[in-house]
């Protein structure tokens, strides 16, 4: 088991924080609960019910694909990045266009918290919980780093959600394409950095930098929304 304080902090960051963020948003505006849940469901369907089973099936059934994954790490990283962006941004756009009724700035934020929060709970929170009973020695720094990364990506998901929501509201595909391209670039570069054997903290620094870039976008959109108010 990793050191208990590191594990508890990571559980707080990956499980409690997304729920807490949803509660804060719902207290400010009860209507935010619906986009939050839709965001969570979108990640669940796009990744857990569609993309991941399809990738698993391909790896099991196609020897060509298995060889591709083992012998072409750069192309495979690009394939993983493209499919993640396609399923997540595509799913986001479809849900926002077809199901989501409220499309304000705060609704986009709530959707992103749901999407990123669900990813954080499923990818790190639940596995971290299982570490409580694990005899394996895992570095506390690594556990903390994975928790911090989920906070960065949750903020990035909020920005992508606001970007795609603006595209869905205006029926313009540009925002969706931009989100798709940025999502692909983020995943591809992070995967490449890992493939090249660079220290993990450099990858996390890159994700942190990307998060600040996206926070800049969020602040810009927020200022535009406030300008538009009567």
């Amino acid at each position, binding site marked *: 088991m990793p050191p208990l304080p590191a594990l508890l902090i990571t559980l707080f960051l990956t499980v409690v924080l997304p729920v807490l963020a949803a509660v804060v948003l719902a207290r400010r505006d009860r209507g935010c609960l619906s986009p939050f849940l839709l965001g969570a469901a979108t990640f669940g369907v796009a990744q857990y019910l*569609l*993309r991941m089973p*399809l990738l698993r099936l391909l790896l099991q059934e196609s020897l060509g694909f298995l060889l591709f994954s083992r*012998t072409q790490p750069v192309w495979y990283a690009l394939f993983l990045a*493209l499919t993640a962006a396609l399923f997540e941004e595509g799913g986001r756009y479809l849900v926002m266009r077809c199901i989501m009724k409220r499309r304000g700035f705060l609704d986009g934020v709530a959707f992103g918290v749901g999407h990123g929060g669900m990813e954080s709970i499923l990818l790190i929170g639940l596995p971290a919980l299982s570490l409580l009973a694990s005899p394996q020695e895992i570095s506390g720094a690594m556990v903390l780093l994975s928790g911090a990364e989920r906070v960065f990506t949750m903020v990035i998901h909020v920005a992508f959600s606001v970007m795609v929501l603006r595209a869905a509201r205006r029926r313009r595909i540009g925002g969706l394409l931009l989100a798709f391209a940025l999502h692909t670039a983020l995943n591809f570069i992070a995967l490449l950095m890992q493939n090249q054997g660079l220290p993990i903290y450099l990858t996390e620094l890159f994700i942190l930098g990307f998060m600040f870039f996206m926070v800049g976008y969020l602040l810009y959109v927020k200022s535009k929304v406030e300008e538009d108010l009567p």
Partner: protein
Amino acid sequence: MKKAAAVTLAALLLICSACAGNAFEFDKEEAVSAAKEVAELVHAQDYEALHGLFREDVRPLITAEALQAAVQPILDQAGAFQEYEKADAASYKDKQYGDLITVALKAKYENAALTYTISFDRDYALMGLYIQ
């Protein structure tokens, strides 16, 4: 939606596969045959001989005991070997180990199907073994 997702995934796969050719020419049949020899040693549970197949610089990275500890539970669960179902191979350049040939070999067992991913250098010295 599921259908559209599958079609899109397949199209992306095709594009990526088209971009990824073999790094150098090699005899696919010879590679598959070498991979089957490795699998036969696994079936015979001869971990010392299997360990001996690894190239000299890779051999110290693993022990016969570690091989047994990793492979035996998978074999026990899969049951008796029945037949090889299909195989494919590709060559590539590895940053650390240079020119490598990797064979994917699917084998049918009593209770499961296992896929071996076996890597060799150009002289067919074993460089890697992965069973799933």
